[in-house]
């Protein structure tokens, strides 16, 4: 995978993670709302497939299909694990674990982007 494509993938992943962060925040905010069902994003793989088909037909630098719209339309109601008597299905511990995953993955992707960007700049700079 070329450096540009890798940067593109990392960027996609970060967008997906941002949407997941919003979903987790929504679940945590509604932890005591009666009848609220926890939501989550579709797996990154699924979202990626939709964007890949668009990638093949457009310039590598410009992602035609907004991964944001793809991911946000991929918000779905999570398979309700436990549903309380009030109809609320948010599991606080699980949501906090998800948040931890998001944090870790986002940091990883950001690190990759930073490193590869620096490397690309450095590789071009070498000797006139």
């Amino acid at each position, binding site marked *: 995978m070329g450096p540009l494509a890798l940067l593109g993938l990392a960027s996609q992943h970060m967008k997906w993670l941002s949407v997941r962060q919003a979903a987790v*925040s929504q679940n945590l905010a509604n932890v005591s709302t009666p009848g609220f069902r926890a939501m989550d994003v579709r797996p990154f793989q699924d979202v990626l497939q939709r964007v890949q088909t668009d990638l093949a037909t457009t310039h590598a630098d410009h992602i035609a299909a907004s991964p944001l719209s793809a991911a946000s339309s991929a918000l779905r109601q999570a398979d309700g694990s436990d549903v309380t008597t009030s109809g609320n299905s948010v599991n606080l511990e699980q949501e906090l674990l998800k948040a931890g995953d998001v944090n870790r993955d986002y940091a990883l992707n950001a690190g990759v982007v*930073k490193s590869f960007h620096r490397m690309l700049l450095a590789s071009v700079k070498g000797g006139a």
Partner: protein
Amino acid sequence: MIDPLQSALRIAGSGLDVQSARMRVVSENIANASSTGSTLGADPYARKTISFQNEMSRAAGAPLLRVRGIDVDQKPFRVELNPGHPAADEKGYVKLPNVDVLVELADLRETNRSYQANLQAVRQSRELITMTLDLLKA
């Protein structure tokens, strides 16, 4: 949803707001668990309840949680025989608040947990935005 991280921040912020409002209500109930009236046959403190609702916010591009209202619990007051009490009626009965401290304490614990979780979400959303901006630094 233009910026999901901004939305996440506002959503978590709204969760924080409602949980802290709920804490105030529950704390007030606990503080007034024994507050009787002071005149003949007067009503005591009445338990308060709070309800939330989701309101769509264009700025956040997502529904935000808001306090719908603070209501009074219609559960009947407890009565106790205490003829010497200033609030005792002709038969010597005093009306006591319809507050069950054990229930309120459990509520308080749960509210605190929710508050902490939302606080964590706020902090994390802020951190993710910072991580993104840091990419521009050398």
